[in-house]
């Protein structure tokens, strides 16, 4: 009898020794992400676009991108101007390179702002509940009920009027409207995320490890940022990725309507906008920036999709 018990104990021990170390969820996610073919394709396209916009700047100067040569207006694509020229004779290849930098920067920075606000509002609202939650969520619902474009147009005017000069960043003269657009997009696109984070917090805060943290005497803020926030990172990461694509499209739409970044600072959006002069007669004016925008957003969507699948334990594809 005692012998049998000892034997059993030994089996347990050996089993315990043989058990492989459990992989962390992050490692699993990374492995799955790189098995996701579309996500990897997205990464490759994104790398190519970054190479084009940042690497291209070493071959073409910004003066050339902003250099208007009226003798060469509306030139169709040729060896001298692979993407053609615009209505004042600026080379579109150079402009898409420098415009791309601004467009991508607008996407990245505005999403950073949106993610910060959305996460904090979601965490606070979900964790504290009650009156704070009601006020914040009613505000979010009210903002969601206003058409985004109208909100953007109305906000855009006072911000752009308040800032009519150029600023210098990394040695480049950049229209302050870039900052205005970043703020506008950042301040209006956090709503959806705050609701996602809030719903996550609502389920998380009922769990035992939060109760344990309370009993150990952790403060509310410590619980929110040390215990709850890390558990919300996956959906935040996914919506940040997809948000970059969204922000680039919004910038393009605003610029296309003439409310975006003001020239001479180029963005993919305002290059497209110049094409409104005669989009049917000079299609190359919108084809190159249009293709670049589509490719960028496409690759971002691929990456976002890959991240979503990688973090989702339900999808066994590529697991």
């Amino acid at each position, binding site marked *: 009898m005692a012998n049998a018990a000892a034997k059993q104990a030994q089996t347990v021990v050996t089993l315990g020794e043989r058990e492989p170390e459990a992989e962390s969820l992050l490692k699993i996610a990374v492995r799955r992400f790189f098995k996701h073919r579309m996500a990897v394709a997205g990464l490759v396209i994104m790398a190519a676009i970054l190479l084009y916009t940042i690497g291209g700047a070493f071959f073409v100067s910004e003066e050339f991108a902003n250099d208007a040569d009226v003798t060469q207006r509306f030139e169709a694509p040729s060896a001298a101007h692979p993407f053609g020229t615009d209505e004042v004779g600026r080379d579109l290849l150079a402009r898409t390179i420098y415009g791309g930098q601004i467009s991508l920067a607008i996407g990245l920075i505005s999403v950073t702002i949106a993610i910060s606000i959305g996460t904090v509002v979601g965490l606070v609202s979900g964790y504290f509940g009650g009156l704070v939650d009601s006020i914040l969520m009613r505000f979010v619902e009210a903002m969601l009920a206003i058409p985004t474009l109208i909100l953007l147009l*109305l906000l855009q005017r006072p911000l752009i009027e308040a800032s009519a000069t150029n600023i210098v960043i990394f040695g480049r003269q950049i229209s302050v409207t870039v900052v205005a657009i970043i703020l506008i997009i950042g301040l209006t696109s956090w709503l959806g995320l705050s609701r996602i984070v809030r*719903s996550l917090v609502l389920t998380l805060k009922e769990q035992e490890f939060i109760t344990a943290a309370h009993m150990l005497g952790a403060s509310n803020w410590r619980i929110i940022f040390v215990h709850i926030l890390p558990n919300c990172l996956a959906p935040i990461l996914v919506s940040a990725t997809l948000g970059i694509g969204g922000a680039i499209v919004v910038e393009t739409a605003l610029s296309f309507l003439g409310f975006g970044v003001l020239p001479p600072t180029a963005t993919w959006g305002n290059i497209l906008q110049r094409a409104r002069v005669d989009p049917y007669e000079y299609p190359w004016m919108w084809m190159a920036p*249009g293709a670049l925008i589509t490719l960028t957003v496409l690759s971002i969507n691929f990456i976002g999709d890959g991240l979503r699948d990688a973090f989702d334990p339900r999808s066994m594809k590529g697991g």
Partner: protein
Amino acid sequence: MGKYIIQRILQAIPLLIIISIVVFSLMKLAGDPFAYLAQDPRATPQDRALMRAKYGLDDPLPVQYITWLVGDDWRMRDKTGDGELDSYGDRRGVLRGDLGESIVYGRTVGEVFSIRLPNTLILMVTQYVVTIFLALFIGIFAALRKYTVADNIITGISFVLFSMPVFLLALLLVQVFAVQFKHLGLPYLPVSGMYDPRGDRSIDELVRHLILPVASLAAISIAGYSRYIRATMLEVINSDYIRTRAPKACPNGVSRSCTRSRTHRFRWSRWWRWTCHSCWAARSSPRRSSAGRGWAPRLLRRCGGPICS
């Protein structure tokens, strides 16, 4: 149920008030509606002040909001800007159906709306109907043929369309179906207007003019919705009640043979209806699907607890 509906309506009232205050304040931020008079040499600053006084633009913001909401025919107003109260106002307020007067068009806002609303509705309703039908069809088709060539092609096209700004797609369609078709001498589509100015105002003309705008608007929403329907379908197909029903409807479960088999058409349609209902139910409650049924809470449930801590 009745109590629940009333409760929801009562909850919506403060929300509507907040929305109207936010939008009203934003409109005020947009600037002085009479700023354009500053460039007009015929208008003196006194004229401008008079106009501002007439429309009550010098009142404090809360007063302007109240005027907009419930009108000003119940109080004395200073209409000439001289600091004296002249007469009762003539606005009845939004709550009593008076949307006010458009400064740009010189008509009441209600008139301006009623001229434009039918055209907007024609475009949006057509677009929505096309979107629903095609998205449902494409989504279900792709779900039934999961990971086949057809599904992959549909997925690829959806991703590209979904990544395009809508006006870019519109430019592209115009370039192909209007400009290039005209160059090639093929029948081409009109790019603007609702009717041909030289032709009649027939329904054919309207449809011809609708094709390009509806196609560009619908294509992008179809790309999004069909992905959504495909995902929901895949979820529903694997659920218990379909699994138990499927052998009755289709002998080999949900297979391609079932779509071809005439004898099973009736049951097939019933099965189709269930899945559609499930799709729409999930679609119509975005809040629930993002909170309770989305992938993130499920992720947490599956992992059985905290991820990193």
